[in-house]
């Protein structure tokens, strides 16, 4: 009898070991994210027409230490950009003697949930507008200040600060605005178009190989809910269009300019692919 139970125990052990090995190393973790007591939605049911059943935040694909750094807003170095952004919000700039706060008052109230609904349709420019471009529009038209140069530290900090006011709010793009649907279509085409010497489309990594390793890096679904993101490898904030360009560079293709038609279309489409995920700005990635 003893012998049988011992054998059964061994079999169970082997089965457990088998399961542990059977699980791919690149799979997303089963963990929940809470930042300052606010629960984040890191898994959401995919919108209709989405290739996945469930959309997953990139947070689930990161190492335990990286996940912990994001979960503690004190440890999160991206919060330094949020603090810097708060200073810019209050700083007067341009010929009209105004700051962001002159019109929008307290960002915690006026900007709450705003970042989660971008990109939006800009009826004046007849193209999509994201948070960075909206800031520039405000600066030029309402403050008499100059538009930021792409990836200026202040642009990244202010964008981070504004998007941080939507921490926890699920991303949701309203495609019924203007011609946004047409830009979504264009973005989708780009997402599935192979480019570069390596002949990769966005989908080659973030759809077909999601959850696998690419060299030492862990492929996520390529969600944008945490941007601008703090990256350890640059010890600084990384904007979404910088990330797009970085990915495209890595396929050894020609990089479209930041905020170009191509990348704006891609932003519309990729943001939609993360519908329902909480804004995590500033997320922490390796």
């Amino acid at each position, binding site marked *: 009898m003893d012998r049988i139970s011992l054998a059964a125990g061994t079999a169970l052990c082997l089965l457990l070991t088998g399961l542990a090995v059977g699980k791919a190393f690149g799979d997303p973790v089963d963990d929940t994210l809470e930042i300052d007591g606010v629960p984040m939605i890191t898994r959401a049911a995919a919108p209709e027409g989405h290739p996945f059943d469930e959309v997953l935040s990139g947070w689930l694909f990161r190492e335990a230490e990286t996940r912990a750094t994001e979960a503690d807003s*004190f440890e999160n170095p991206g919060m330094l950009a949020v603090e810097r952004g708060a200073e810019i919000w209050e700083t007067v700039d341009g010929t009209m003697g105004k700051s962001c706060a002159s019109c929008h008052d307290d960002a915690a109230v006026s900007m709450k949930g705003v970042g989660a609904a971008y990109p939006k349709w800009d009826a004046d420019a007849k193209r999509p507008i994201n948070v960075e471009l909206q800031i520039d529009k405000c600066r030029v038209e309402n403050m008499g200040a100059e538009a930021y140069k792409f990836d200026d*530290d202040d642009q990244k900090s202010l964008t981070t600060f504004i998007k941080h006011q939507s921490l926890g709010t699920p991303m949701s793009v309203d495609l019924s605005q203007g011609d946004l649907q047409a830009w979504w279509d264009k973005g989708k085409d780009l997402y599935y178009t192979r480019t570069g010497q390596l002949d990769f489309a966005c989908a080659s990594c973030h759809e077909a190989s999601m959850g696998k390793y690419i060299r030492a890096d862990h492929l996520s679904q390529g969600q944008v809910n945490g941007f601008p993101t703090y990256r350890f490898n640059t010890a600084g904030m990384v904007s979404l269009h910088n990330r797009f360009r970085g990915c495209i560079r890595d396929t050894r293709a020609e990089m479209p300019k930041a905020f170009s038609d191509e990348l704006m279309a891609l932003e519309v489409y990729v943001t939609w692919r993360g519908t329902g995920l909480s804004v995590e700005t500033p997320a922490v990635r390796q």
Partner: protein
Amino acid sequence: MASAPKPRVKVPKTASAGEVIVIKTLISHEMESGQRKDKDGNPIPRKIINKFSCAFNGKPVFSCDLDPAVSANPYFEFSARVPESGTFTFIWVDDDGSVYTDEQSIKVE
């Protein structure tokens, strides 16, 4: 993070006598190693935080030297036993001689 270094510390507001508490500190700083070159090939001078120390009511709690390999925005987490109410003082020393300080008081109940 080109703006002036800004220290941040996190210390519990209250503790019971003799309790071991966790202290977290973070300072924004570029930690320029001195080993990089600019676009024209000239070395970028070293500028790092080279010393950090923490004291409680004047008594040393924790201190360390930092070297150029430490990455930007150095973060420290350590624990301390608090026997009585008092004040933690934190000091960061920069290569250029600047000293950044912060303090937090804690009440023992």
